[in-house]
């Protein structure tokens, strides 16, 4: 982008908003918003404390386990629904209900069912992510060109070969889109799980900092989470772009 004939570096708007934050913070307008420089300083002071590292590793474990189960369950289920009318009729209403349902309200039920530990957090994370992954995989398979299916049949492809060599790849752009949205939802799931179920990980840190009005700490952790979610999403978007060359002509 250029302004007044000067070429601006990328992320210029981020610098501008950062300055804005700094000014508001320094004006002492509200205790709720300390200056950005203070938040960043706080971040470096807490980043190698055991509390922060424990929170990070607990969250990462729950997140990865939840996303992994959502992907491993979601993609085959979606492909199966796209290929099999009966399975589709059976499962689609549930997928649609859960996709739009306020899953946070289910968390107390999960607590009762699976206890107050890691297990419930992982299940919450997976529940947030899995539905959109299923729906996208299903949509990806349903738009596969009829002649690709005919081609597989005419050369005598076994169902497994058709699935692994054709359907999965032909649906890959949609599948990756679903995984990307699913991962973003999983970030919400893991934090909500940690806040509601058992006060562990970043959930515990949030509780601690906000209850003690440590706003610098609070914002530092929040920025870390936002940044992690953003990097994950951009990484998957880059992966999506790598297959987009064939998304237009399948």
């Amino acid at each position, binding site marked *: 982008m250029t302004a007044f004939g000067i070429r601006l570096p990328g992320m210029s708007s981020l610098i501008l908003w950062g300055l804005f934050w700094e000014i508001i913070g320094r004006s002492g307008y509200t205790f709720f918003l300390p200056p950005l420089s203070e938040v960043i300083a706080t971040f470096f002071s807490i980043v190698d404390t055991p509390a922060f590292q424990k929170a990070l590793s607990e969250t990462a474990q729950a997140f990865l386990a939840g996303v992994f189960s959502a992907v491993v369950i979601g993609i085959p289920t979606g492909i199966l629904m796209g290929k099999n009318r009966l399975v589709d009729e059976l499962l689609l209403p549930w997928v649609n209900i859960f996709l739009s349902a306020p899953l946070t309200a289910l968390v107390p039920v999960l607590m009762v069912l699976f206890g107050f530990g890691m297990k419930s957090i992982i299940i919450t994370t997976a529940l947030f992510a899995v539905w959109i992954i299923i729906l996208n995989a299903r949509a990806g398979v349903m738009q596969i060109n009829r002649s690709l299916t*005919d081609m*597989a*049949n005419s*050369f*005598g492809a076994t169902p497994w070969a058709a699935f692994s060599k054709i359907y999965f790849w032909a649906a890959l752009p949609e599948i990756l889109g679903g995984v990307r949205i699913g991962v973003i939802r999983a970030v919400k799931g893991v934090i909500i799980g940690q806040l509601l179920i058992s006060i562990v990980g970043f959930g515990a840190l949030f509780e601690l900092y906000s209850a003690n009005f440590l706003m610098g700490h609070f914002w530092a952790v929040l920025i870390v989470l936002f940044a992690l979610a953003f990097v994950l999403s951009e990484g998957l978007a880059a992966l999506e772009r790598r297959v987009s*060359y064939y998304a237009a002509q399948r």
Partner: protein
Amino acid sequence: MDTHPIDMTRSATNASAAAAVSVRGVSKNYGQVEALRDLSLDFPRGQLTSLLGPSGCGKTTLLKIIAGLLQPTEGEVEVNGKPVTGPGPDRAFVFQDFALLPWATVLRNVAFGLELRGVRISEREAIAEQYIRNVGLAGFEKSYPHELSGGMRQRVGLARALAVDSEVLLMDEPFSAVDEQTRRKFQEDLLGLVAGENKTFLFVTHSIEEAVYVSDQIAILLPRPSRVSEVIRPSGLRTRNVSDIRRDPEYLDIVDRIWASLRSYVE
């Protein structure tokens, strides 16, 4: 090679005895809609038979029934005397929209039929390389379909069908998605292929000129419900030089005759 001598298997007299594919009393209904009604037709071995007709006359439906991709409501199809129950290695299909894997190279696409049949990778790639050369795509082995023109993509589709070495080649309007110049080149190449490959070709087209140019036998289908209205066998065109066929009086007569019988079906 420009001229194609007529040998015994290609002469008209013993065509029915040497039928590679025969269709017997085939009907196909989609719910209340009759796509095909009691259709019977023989496809002589080693020759090219066109299915010609206006759009919606069920030519592609018939081709897919022969391929085993669709089941007929009634009647049966025999390939080399064996009834068709599904797709089989004795038939290969060339698709109108090419049906290539966009994420795979030309080499893998051409070898894909063999890959699905479990041929080892070194063996199938050797075969594929040979057919890539035969269709004139040498040097494009590592290219992806989106880097090729429509005509080149269809050459990939053709090479894939040839690579599995089926006796019967089913071609569903293979040249309709390529430009006119490329199509003419394809038609000439197809004549060389029919003469050289000793395969039976079934060719669906809606172009009268194309059908007369490439065919040993033309089956004209009329719509709603489809039946074979006429079978025409050009007698002298195959001995002509490929570049002289379009000036041959027989070529022009047959084109006119087919148009006369089809024109009333065109809205």
